[in-house]
């Protein structure tokens, strides 16, 4: 019987010809990563194991991105644990502020995630690298500790759900809208424990950025991973970045799926997720009048150059609404520099936006844009849980960069057409 991409990658890393859903395997990992919140716990647990060194310093990545640049003394001490550990174990892929980026923007950019890889990360959005045809999934700190010692981890081979999208996407509708629509349809546990395989002609036309956005939010449907087939666009993206060989896997025609969803998205409207779950999605036309205090454009979901370009297209020669804060946070230093060279910062600053150094910051209510009681934000981030961006009685709405930019201008949830952008 045929296998899916996910099954093939898991089988190859477990040294097996074939694996089936439900099977428990031990698999070798190509990369294990952690951040300034999760890695300190992992390092504490790693030290309990009593081994002298990590299994391979080149296959561990430590990215202090959540509370950096250090927001307070406690955060500074958390980051110091990573820095000291990286030094002690000779880990080259420790990224200090200045070269650091939001981990899931940075890792692919650095060529550390490649097609066919098996990657685990102590951050739930590690599933992002599925955009490159890798199996990647979020784990906790103790799993990270064990993987740093052993170079392998245990997995239950997931069942796969196939999503087929067809039709040309309308203007201002992209990867974020596709994944929000999907989560709205299947629910926040609609893919629990399962692999989400994204396919179809719409996906073939989708940029790598759009695919990263979709894979990133697989976890918001409970998915173990999100994955895409490798195509010319993927090869184009990785060939300039890869420093080692990689393997391309494709799903067999007779691969087995637990479910198949098929959607015509040619008339899809921009999607907005209302508080307090990513499944509470509505098309733009049904949002009503929702006034906003803050808009955030950035994060591992939508902090890439294409996202910033899209926002700039809407914000050009426009002004951010009075008393609304617009924060623009490029995902990495390279994206930051690219945006600067393209003149996007002039557009943002002229509009009245603040541009920040890369950080996860407000996405998880860490710093750099926390909400007061009763405030409302629209963000290109991935979660709108209670208290996610600040006070437990604040609200977060999720959308793509074009809607975010237009909403910042309108002062309420709005599309580009409503603020005079065609």
């Amino acid at each position, binding site marked *: 019987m045929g296998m899916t991409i996910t099954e093939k990658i898991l089988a190859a890393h477990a040294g097996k010809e074939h694996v089936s859903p439900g099977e428990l395997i031990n698999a070798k990992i190509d990369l294990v990563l952690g951040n300034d*919140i999760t890695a300190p716990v992992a390092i504490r647990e790693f030290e309990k194991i009593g081994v002298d060194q990590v299994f391979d310093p080149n296959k561990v990545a430590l990215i202090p991105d959540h509370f950096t640049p250090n927001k307070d003394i406690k955060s500074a001490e958390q980051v110091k644990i990573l820095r000291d550990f990286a030094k002690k174990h000779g880990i080259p892929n420790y990224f200090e502020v200045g070269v650091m980026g939001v981990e899931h923007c940075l890792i692919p950019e650095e060529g550390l995630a490649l097609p066919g890889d098996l990657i685990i990360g102590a951050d739930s959005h*590690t599933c992002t690298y599925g955009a490159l045809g890798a199996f990647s999934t979020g784990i*906790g700190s103790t799993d990270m500790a064990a993987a740093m010692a052993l170079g392998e981890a245990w997995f239950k081979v997931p069942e796969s759900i196939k999503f087929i999208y067809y039709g040309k996407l309308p203007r201002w509708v992209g990867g974020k809208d596709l994944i929000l629509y999907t989560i709205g349809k299947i629910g926040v546990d609609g893919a629990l424990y399962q692999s989400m395989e994204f396919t179809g002609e719409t996906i073939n036309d989708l940029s790598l950025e759009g695919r990263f956005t979709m894979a990133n939010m697989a976890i918001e449907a409970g998915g173990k991973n999100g994955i895409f087939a490798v195509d010319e666009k993927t090869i184009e993206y990785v060939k300039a970045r890869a420093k080692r060989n990689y393997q391309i896997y494709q799903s067999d025609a007779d691969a087995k799926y637990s479910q198949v969803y098929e959607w015509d998205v040619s008339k899809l409207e921009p999607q907005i997720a209302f508080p307090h779950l990513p499944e509470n999605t509505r098309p733009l036309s049904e949002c009503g009048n929702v006034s906003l205090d803050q808009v955030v454009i950035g994060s591992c979901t939508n902090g890439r150059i294409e996202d910033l370009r899209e926002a700039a297209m809407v914000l050009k020669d426009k002004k951010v609404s009075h008393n609304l804060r617009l924060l623009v946070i490029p995902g990495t230093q390279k994206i930051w520099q690219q945006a600067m060279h393209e003149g996007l910062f002039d557009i943002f600053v002229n509009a009245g936006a603040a541009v920040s150094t890369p950080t996860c910051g407000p996405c*998880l209510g860490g710093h750099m844009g926390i909400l007061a009681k009763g405030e409302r934000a629209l963000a290109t981030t991935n979660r709108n849980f209670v208290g996610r961006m600040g006070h*437990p009685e604040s609200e977060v709405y999720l959308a793509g960069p074009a809607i975010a930019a237009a909403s910042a201008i309108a002062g309420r949830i709005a599309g580009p057409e409503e603020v005079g952008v065609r």
Partner: protein
Amino acid sequence: MNLLQGKTWRFGNDVDTDLIIPARYLNTSDPVELAKHCMEDADPTFAGKVSPGEIIVAGKNFGCGSSREHAPIAIKAAGVSCVIAASFARIFYRNSINIGLPILESPEASQAIAEGSIVSVDVATGTITDQSTGKTYQAAPFPPFMQSLINAGGLIEYVKTKMK
């Protein structure tokens, strides 16, 4: 150790890790500090009123969201002896097993057990008994590999034996 008994606290569906331990407290990984804020955004009074040995009963998809192990750590350090839910989010499930927080999946128990009931749980067999009503429920058993992780006292102890 395998027989737990305690009063229950009920929570709803899709309790996410931000509700269990908000990110504003994640600049520390000290279990005692984390326990002070356990479930804070779901019920700000919880950490003050929960007593050691008590049990959380919740709906579907408990622990969804972030991979933060601080979530099961906060629950465990608050003294909660186990969590019974209709289903668990994947990473939370894995983290709980890895750190030795007993979790039991039973949609029936999740639906039927009332807040404040006295419930006993046999972790080894997965049998849940509601002492207040006399009803029993059977949680899905762990696969043998996961049971061996639990028996070893969590993943780190398991890895230690493996590396010897």
